[in-house]
């Protein structure tokens, strides 16, 4: 077949748009990281210049390490995100297996009930959630955050995972049953490993919103020992509002973990979207 010739002008135009938008997308991040390595004077006099020998400084980073409880905040964020993801995946996969594998009364209804939460933001129940957490003594604990994030992540997890579990071959499970495996073994040993890619997709969809959330940490866990990195950075900006070195360094350090996570998982994200997991 004859290939249609592509107009070289179009190709140049397309790449120009992409490059211009790349600059727009990355410019603010670049400004923050660049200035975090400069002295106060350098930051104010030439905000867009690269640090040179007279303006290079890492005093901001030193302040962050000395003053801020950054490591604690980071640890809190990590615990909350990892534990929430673990429960979303475990509970979500178990429920998805029950819904996709067995026929029982109320199966469809249960599926609909669990799917309600896909479109309804959990924030709308915050008033009552706060009361529950106060009543149960979980206020200002990481467990409060973990419970809330697990609940909010489950609906989409169940939905995506049950779609994938329907595709697991019935012969395989029946063979397992003939070999005398219990239903639990069939789930954990045979089915779970096969839906690992779908679980990675669910993890990626949930990871960033949990890590970046400000609303629930602000309301449920704003004590010093339970601050997450997002809330901690917000408070840090307030405290060090005149110490720009420290603020810029603190923010640069907060950018790093998510970018690393994203680069590790971006392939999975694309694969998840292309496979139609969100349709």
């Amino acid at each position, binding site marked *: 077949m004859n290939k249609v010739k592509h107009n070289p002008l179009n190709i140049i135009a397309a790449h120009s748009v992409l490059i211009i938008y790349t600059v727009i997308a990355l410019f603010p991040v670049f400004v923050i990281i660049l200035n975090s390595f400069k002295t106060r004077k350098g930051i104010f006099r030439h905000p867009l210049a690269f640090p040179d020998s007279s303006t290079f400084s890492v005093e901001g980073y030193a302040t962050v390490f000395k003053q801020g409880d950054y490591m604690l905040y980071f640890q809190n964020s990590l615990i909350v995100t990892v534990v929430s993801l673990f429960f979303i995946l475990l509970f979500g996969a178990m429920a998805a297996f029950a819904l996709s594998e067995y026929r029982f009364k109320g199966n469809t209804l249960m599926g609909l009930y669990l799917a309600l939460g896909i479109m309804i933001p*959990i924030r*709308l129940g915050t*008033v009552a959630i706060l009361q529950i957490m106060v009543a149960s003594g979980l206020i200002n604990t990481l467990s409060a955050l973990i419970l809330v994030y697990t609940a909010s992540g489950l609906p989409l997890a169940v939905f995506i995972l049950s779609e994938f579990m329907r595709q697991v071959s019935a012969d395989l499970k029946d063979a397992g049953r003939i070999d005398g495996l219990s239903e639990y073994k069939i789930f954990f040993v045979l089915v779970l490993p096969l839906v690992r890619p779908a679980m990675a997709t669910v993890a990626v969809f949930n990871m*960033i919103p949990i890590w970046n959330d400000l609303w629930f940490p602000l309301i449920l866990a704003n004590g010093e020992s339970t601050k997450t990195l997002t809330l901690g950075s917000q408070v840090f900006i307030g405290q060090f509002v005149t110490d720009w070195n420290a603020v810029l360094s603190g923010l640069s350090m907060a950018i790093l973990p998510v970018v690393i996570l*994203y680069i590790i998982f971006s392939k999975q994200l694309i694969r998840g979207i292309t496979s139609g997991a969100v349709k």
Partner: protein
Amino acid sequence: MEKKKKRWHIAIFLAPAVLVYSALMIFPLFGTLQLSLFDKVDQQQVFVGLDNFRTLFFNERWAESFWNALKNNTWFFFINMLVQNPVGIMLAAILSSKVVRFSAFFRTAFFIPTILSFVIVGFAWKLILSPIWGIAPDLLDMVGLKSLFAPYLGLESTALTTLALISVWQFVGIPMMLIYASLLSIPDEVLEAAEIDGLTGMSAFLKIKLPLIWPSIGIISILTFVGNFNSFDLIYTTQGGLAGPNYSTDVLGSLLYRTFFGFQTQIGDINMGAALSVVMFGIILAGVSFYLFAIQSRMRRYQF
């Protein structure tokens, strides 16, 4: 044949998810609904029917804040819808074209703002737009447009639109990614057939690809709607809890925060907060139902 046993394992598989989800999502939603019908009188919760809603909609002090927040929120949503989604679609269309090199690099770059926390995004743009630090004035000066500069985030007339555009900048990655994926799923044969019929470039996009990605455009629209009508974080990190200047950037989420949690001199009012949550729930439910019943069910889907 063996008699059917009680299949306990089904219950055990379902229990953890159903318990956590019911206890922290469904139950609080109903709890909030219930709280919205009560008021605190002498430390006692007293049933007052729809009084809180009457206060919210018509009481002078409350109504002004509520309608202001609703109006701002609607404007915020329109800007996002009309700028973020078209830009996202355009970027995805360019990225999916076969002549583009390094598309993985561009895709990653466009998605980076989406993964950053609101704290970083808010602070970065506050710095750039700050009249004191002056990156924005300097840049405008370079292209000879210095007269256009104003402290955009500090003026009542421009703050909300500026924030909406910052939100566009942050979240354009989501429509871009979803549309990109659905463009990639269009089979080559379809496009080649169109090429043979003389459709290339823009006309191929409008006549062949656009009809095929309508379902994805529907999804990004409803995601934008739900996301915008419970947004809070960006307003809080850039403008603070009072959503200044003079409440010109107040949206439903920030009003809810001040109402039920309290802020500075304002004392939190659980019942009014619950009433406001119920109104927000109604708005989001109306939007989602409209999408599901009026749009999604009529959309044509093509199977390949």
